[in-house]
Structure formats: C-alpha cells, structure tokens
C-alpha cells in the first residue's frame, strides 16, 4: 500500500541585514490556525452586505510579532505570545502564492524591524492571521471582520532555535513561509 501525506509547513528564516541568523525553523501550528482550516472546509460563504465596509479574513490580519519568553514550549491552546514585544514590524509584506513545481504552493510573509527597535533576547516569534472560526456545517457569516489571532509559533523553548539578542546596528527581518506540498 502506498501512503501520501500533505504537509502544511511553516518555515521561519531570520536575518540581520543580509546575514541569515536562522534558516527555515519549523513552526508549530496552534488551535486558531487548525480551527480556521477546519472552519473553511465546512463553510458555505463569507460575505459583506454593509456598503463599503471591508470584512477582513486571513491575510488582511497578517502580522509577525517577536517575543522575549525563552522558557515556555509551544502548546496547541496558546492564544498569544507569552511575552510579546510591543514593537510591530516597521515594514510588513507578503508574496503572492507561488507554485514552483506541481503539487507545491507557497506564500511568504515578511516582517522587518529597523535597527535598534528590538532590544533584549528574542525567544519566540508568532505568525498572526485572521482565520475563520465557525464550525457548523454550512455556516454563513456576513459583516463580520475576522479578528487577528496567533496561528503559529516558534520558540527557543521548543529547541528549534537558540534565543538571540539582535545586533542593534542591523535591520531584523523575519520571513515566514507557509507551504503546502506532498511529503
């Protein structure tokens, strides 16, 4: 018997100026992201009926935050970073979805902090999106702008990277790739 799985992988690359500090650190997906994809599958529609009022979902709520906790491993029920730094990225962007080869799909979010903004040791980083939430078969939702939620996290406490103090003279960049592919 053959067996094929599809992975939804989050891989985080951290740079200071052009230097790669960590490359493709695997994230943990937590409940808000898992629930969001479950919700997506059982929904009928997501809509707006209020004139000229934008209702956000998924990527309109995208952001990356860094945090200073170094001791708390990621668990599925987390809803926020343990000790989030209050400085949002100075710049935030994303690619369109790329399809480099058959069966591979990827979008990459990038957050950039100017030199000297983040001080102290970074021990956790989170990806925030605005996922769906309803779980009833055939759900419909109109005029509800989905709130931002932590969907994935990396942490030094998970052992996937070592907490580091950013060089205050260099730009800090976090690239978060979300890829779907056969594995």
């Amino acid at each position: 018997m053959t067996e094929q799985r599809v992975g939804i992988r989050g891989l985080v690359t951290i740079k200071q100026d052009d230097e790669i500090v960590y490359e493709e650190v695997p994230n943990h997906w937590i409940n808000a992201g898992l629930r969001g994809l479950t919700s997506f599958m059982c929904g009928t529609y997501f809509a707006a009926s209020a004139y000229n009022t934008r209702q956000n979902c998924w990527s309109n709520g995208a952001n990356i935050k860094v945090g200073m906790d170094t001791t708390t491993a990621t668990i599925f029920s987390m809803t926020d970073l343990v000790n989030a730094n209050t400085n949002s990225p100075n710049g935030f962007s994303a690619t369109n979805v790329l399809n480099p080869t058959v069966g591979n799909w990827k979008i990459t979010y990038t957050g950039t902090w100017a030199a000297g903004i983040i001080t102290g040791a970074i021990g956790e980083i989170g990806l925030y999106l605005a996922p769906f939430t309803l779980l009833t078969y055939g759900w419909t939702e109109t005029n509800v702008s989905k709130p931002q939620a932590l969907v994935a996290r990396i942490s030094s406490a998970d052992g996937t990277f070592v907490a580091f103090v950013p060089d205050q003279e260099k730009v800090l960049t976090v690239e978060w790739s979300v890829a779907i592919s056969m594995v």
Partner: protein
Amino acid sequence: MYLDGFYEVRQDDEIVLPYTHNKFLDNGMRGFISIIACGSVCLTCAGGSYTSGIMLPASDWNIYLGNDTTTPTLPTMTILTSPIGNSPGTAPNNKTITVKDGSLNGVWNVVFTAVWNPGSITGIIGEIGLYARWPTNLNYKWDVSTCSSFVTPATTMGSRLCVADNEFTAITIDSSKSVAVNWKLQFAFE
C-alpha cells in the same frame, strides 16, 4: 502540520474499507493556500439588499465513485477517470458534514459523509473522489469587492483514492445494501 485525508467505505454497518490515506490533488492544495492568502470581502453598491462574498467548499460538495482500476492519481486530475453513472457520477442520496472541535487536544477533524441507497449504484468501486468548491485566487490579500455577487469557484475534485495506486482492493458493490463513504480530513498540532 499534516493535512491528512482518509476514506472509509461501509455497506450497511460493515466496514469494507477501513480509513485509508488519500492523495490530494492540485485543486485541493491550491484551495487551502488560496484561502490563507485571502484578504477581505466588501460590498461596493449602496441602497439595496446586496451581498458580496466568497463561496466556500461546503457550499457545493459531493463524493463520487468510479470503477477505474488502472489509472494512478496525478496532481493535475480534476475528475474521476470512470465515474459510476453519468459524469461527474451518481450523487449520493444523503450527505452531511460533521466537525470534531479540537480545542481540548489540538486534533481537528471534519468528516464528509455520503450515503447511497441500496441498488442506486452498482458495479465495482475502483476510485473515490471528493469534489468541492476550492478557491483559486493566488494574490496576496485577494479580495472580493463586488456590487452584488459571489466569487463561486467551480466544483472540482480535490482528493482521490484509487485501486491503481494500490491504496485499496476493488470493491464489488452488494446492491442489496447501502453504500456509505466517509472522507475524514484531519488537522493536528505537532
């Protein structure tokens, strides 16, 4: 996380195929990444009872069965090779979706169930496919800004299980019994 899809086939209460890993197709995989990239919906007309939105997978879905036993699954497939009944296949008599809330353990399931009454389909089952409306837009923050319409993706096959890939042995349908197919999709913390 892994995106695990499994098919189970029953005849009345007998499990004739235990839950078995499927293969996902490009349409299905693209649908998941497309919704992650989605940005917003917005209504651009005032003064009426209008709605603008995105149709999601469960707005039009089906499980179809086929009798092909020689064609392996390719990512680019969009329909079954040889459906039972007229294309896209004989629709089930009953269908439903159940959801397992994974808040307490990080394991989230959604199960699509299709049931055919005894005698409504005959022959052998060599392939099984899940059809749904998978979003296709790949732009970052793609949005739906319309006066009064929905973006309605075509209903296409997003996953398949087949004999040709040695995923199961062809099943001869006992037409005196109902046929039930469960497609379980699982997202799990790890």
